[in-house]
């Protein structure tokens, strides 16, 4: 399982969608890319600004390999603190 922490408007893809607790979606994927994991949740690239993998910011995250046990943090476009 990949642990995806969602923020802002992306929280709706988690079971617990309010901002007062962590909004975590579990993706049943033994291994794959960040793009694949987020696609499973129905999250489009255009809706995403910055991505952290295991607490490390990744500027080009989509083809990054992740496996079961990894934590992915995903921030929405309206929290874009990145200029890319």
């Amino acid at each position, binding site marked *: 399982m990949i642990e995806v*922490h969602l*923020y*802002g408007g992306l929280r709706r893809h988690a079971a617990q969608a*309010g*901002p*007062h*607790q*962590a*909004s975590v979606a579990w993706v049943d994927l033994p291994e794959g890319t960040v793009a694949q994991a987020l696609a499973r949740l129905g999250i489009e690239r255009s809706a995403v*600004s*910055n991505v*952290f993998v295991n*607490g*490390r*910011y990744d*500027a080009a995250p989509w083809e990054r390999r992740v496996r079961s046990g990894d934590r992915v*943090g995903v*921030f929405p476009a*309206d*929290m*874009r*603190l*990145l*200029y*890319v």
Partner: protein
Amino acid sequence: MSRLLRVNMTDRTTTYEEVPEHYRHWGGRGLTSMVIAREVPPTCHPLGPNNKLVIAPGIVSGTAAPTSGRTAFGGKSPLTGTIKESNAGGLSSQQIARLGLKGLVVEGHPREAGQSWLLKITKEGAEFLPASDLAGKGMYEVCRTLWERHGKGVAIIGIGPAGEHRMAGAGICVNDMENTAGRYAGRGGLGAVMGAKGLKAIVIDSTGGPGVAIADDEKFKAAIAKLTEASLKHDVTKKEGALNTYGTNVLANIMNEAGGYPTRNFRSGRFELTAQISGEAARELIGKRNGVGRTGHPCHNGCIIQCSNVYAHPDGTFHTSVLEYESVWALGANCGIGSLDDIADLVRACNDVGLDTIEMGGAIAVTMEGGLLGFGDAEGAKRLLTEEVRRATPLGRIIGNGTEFAGRAFGVVRVPTVKGQSMPAYEPRAVKGIGVTYATTTMGADHTAGYTIASEILGVGGKADPFKPEKAELSRAFQASTAFIDATGYCLFDAFAVLDFPEGLEGLVESCAAVLGTRWTVNDVTALGLQVLKAERGFNEAAGFTKAHDRLPEFMKYEPLPPHGVVFDVPDEELDRVHAY
């Protein structure tokens, strides 16, 4: 031609003087630091007669330049013993500038102890009024009383009881457009310098003032158009961008995800309750409570970013303004407190008593570490501020004198300070560049002095890996450009647009050049910033500071920080390279 106002607290006289050539091109921190470096003996006692408190709007403050309402406060710091500049938003910057004043230099020392004076400045001149009836009063009441007496809309600069009791954690308050006591030049204990001079408050009424003279009006208009356009299109600073929507506390979830959000006195880089104290949670609560609360709130007229907020009680009535990233972290995660309502109480207490929220969060956290109260004890923390610090009890003085003082009092080793000043809300073990800034800035631990986070976490102005220790150049570049921006009166948040859009930086520099009639271009920014840094470093060296002081606390070198398990591994030689210019 703007003038300097000298305020002598020994004989309570004021003198207007032409701005000497050597100060003419400076404003804000540039002016405060140049005056301190030139006029204050570096070895003087910060609370004694030879220190000065310099108050300066920026170069473009008071003009139509957007988001340019910062007032710089400078002096020798009673907290750090170094030169100090701390700046705030609010009403004072524009009104001082529109009276044709480049700045105020408060000097001397009252002949008798226990003096409390008010200085009122209008277009007619400056006068002293007795303020003994305001002595000991909190800043909320002071602001309210002074608008009643001197008119709605006047700018107020003042100190609470903490400053009057000369505590090193005391800040200087500036009122905002709603006359809330929420804008602070918090850092470095300059409130104690003002208190030592017997000055409770300053009222500035710019009605009928001459305004700011602009040497080249056409160039100025073109320049601010460029800066405005850059600011309004940048994702961080635009309308409904991250700062405008969520406030600075949008960063809480981001720094927590990055593992760089200091928790329980810097024991961890992640706080399990971050979600409920985040900017997202605050925005939702403010909306749900449906009262006076709001986000996207400006701290001064002419701000186009509007990152501030007004926080409301559950019944919708006013609670406090502003819940910003640093304050929420300091009095929240760093103390293990996970309720926004509790944090709002603590922020309001700091704002009323006249305290730096960062320093108080740090001091309470080391006191928790020392065992006087437990992490997460919000009621205990409130008692410390409202019953001990406010009343200046012996325990209150220990807390009110800041993190290092409290750490020593309670025998704590894990004391997150540099040069005596408490660290802000970025863990230097997880974000090395900000650690390099903390260690080497002239100010003591200060994130605003060289905000490498912009590159290390936010990817603004190029990208840098937060875990790599080679950060001397990055930190130096940020420290120099920041020293320049701090001189302009522009808010540091303008820097986001400036770092990423060339026309933004051009607009910022050219608008200053147009006001002053200089030929500055973007190529001059680093050199101008370095002039300020050199003056500040010179003062600190003469005050006894060496490279041995440009270091982080020892525990950060041997105590691995969860969740990344990292220590601060930037070599001393790398730290020493920052100022090798």
